[in-house]
């Protein structure tokens, strides 16, 4: 497939993924644009990958993690909770979700990436480890710590939604 055709088909989905990953549409636009520029330059290599979409998604994750690393070297960190958090509004779930989005944005980049890849993209621990270039235990640890910071408690049933081995423990006979 030609690069232009691939971009035409996939850019929207890639941008959405990048927004969820970064928590910031402006940053996501930058990350995706940079990724696609690199992908264009290396298209002869990228286009023959077993799964081009997964390959470019990996490039987006790497670009994001690299961007976060570069940003921290040059940008003073400030706690903007006081001005960025929405006004308390306990009457709507939307406000709670907005608050959660803010907290997601403040997670360390690897924790955030691991959570997004696990619970948004539905990847397995092994797939995330491969994508992030780390071990499965590190991925599990990142996810666990991230969820803890977000004060998210997953029940067994909710864990099943992304763990096929637990989702399908054993087929059962029906009388």
């Amino acid at each position: 497939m030609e690069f232009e055709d691939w971009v035409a088909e996939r850019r929207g989905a890639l941008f959405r993924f990048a927004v969820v990953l970064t928590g910031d549409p402006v940053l996501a636009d930058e990350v995706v644009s940079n990724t696609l520029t690199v992908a264009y330059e290396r298209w002869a290599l990228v286009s023959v990958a077993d799964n081009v979409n997964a390959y470019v998604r990996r490039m987006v994750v790497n670009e994001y993690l690299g961007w976060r690393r570069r940003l921290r070297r040059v940008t003073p960190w400030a706690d903007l909770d006081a001005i960025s958090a929405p006004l308390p509004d306990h009457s709507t779930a939307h406000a709670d979700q907005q608050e959660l989005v803010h907290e997601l944005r403040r997670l360390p980049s690897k924790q955030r990436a691991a959570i997004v890849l696990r619970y948004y993209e539905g990847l397995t621990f092994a797939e995330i480890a491969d994508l992030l270039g780390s071990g499965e235990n590190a991925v599990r640890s990142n996810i666990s710590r991230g969820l803890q910071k977000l004060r998210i408690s997953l029940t067994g049933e909710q864990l099943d939604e992304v763990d096929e081995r637990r989702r399908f423990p054993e087929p059962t006979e029906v009388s």
Partner: protein
Amino acid sequence: MRTKADLDGAFVLLEEQADEYAHSTGLQAIDRSRPRHRFAAAAVAAVVTLGVAAGAVTLYSATDRGPSSGSVTNVCVTSLPAAWQQALHNDVVPTPGSNPGPLAVTNDGAVITDWTDGQGDVRFGSVKPGSTVAPLGRMPTPTGSQIGTVAAAGHFAVASFYRRGRTTDIDLFDLATGRITRLLPDAPLARHAHAFGGAWLAVQHKTVYWPASRTASGAPNVLISYDIAKRSYRRKQTDGPAVFYNPLGIYWQGGYLASQQLPPDHPPIGQRMTVATDSDALAWSSGEGSTVRWSDLEGDSRTLSQDLSHFLGIDAVAGPYVLLDRGEGDDSDAMSGNVQLLDTRTGAIADTHVQAGWYPVVSRGGLLAFATGDRGSTFHLVDTSKLPELRCD
């Protein structure tokens, strides 16, 4: 403490922000104008949707090919031969209970059907031409359960059910032993791509397939498979929606085919089509009602045009025959319609005067099963291979 639903909600919120940002900033226009993007001419990202209604599916093909340059056969109108009239109207299968309807055909010629028994429960069975229905299972209707989709291959049938529109079960029926195995118990429907209320299904080579969603948007991005012999599950991640060509197989937009059984000639990318399949043939139309394409696994491809004045869609393919829904049925049942029979070998088309009922017309290997009357009061089973081809005088 927060829950998984809260996290899903946050993802949805971020997706909405992505869409709002793209809309408000003219993201696509920026893509075209930024000189640093050497791919500036790239077109905007297509919004991928998957629509299914009454057998019409939107197809996406990563291995798209344009229409073939084969010859076009003009159709000609003829009258239905007596043997066809006899078969279509009189080859009725006796079924117990009420509201029988065909759901799928196995590749050894058994038709999976359902009916309502005297207690108001929905029951399943299989039947072959000339034999009586063998019951398979029972689904109590007071629970609010309904049938989603059914697929069959060999002596296996698989069915999805949904409960009050919220959860879905998938059951595997072994037609040889009568054993029923629940593959997916009480799963959230929102996590499973569904048509007609239940999970999409396919069964091939002793493996059951169904798509699932692991994204907050609900788009199917995972293909679950169950190996009947090994009693084990597998999953494959993909990036696009799945389209099922039952019983031909599965096409997966993410770049690979779960089934290699698609004909060489198949529908083009991104266009809304009505599609129907037999075990080795596929027919499709753009829906404009002027052209029908037919293709089989051996590479034979036919285009039929002219005099096919507007029709609603393709009801079924049975061997070389295509059944067209003319949409001229009884006003009391919006799903009914007069069915026309098109012989793709000769281009001959004939009115059948069959009023297709609420159930879909299903076929496999030239065997045609359909219900007529209000919500399928009569069950017909026709072996088209034993009937003469249609010709124009």
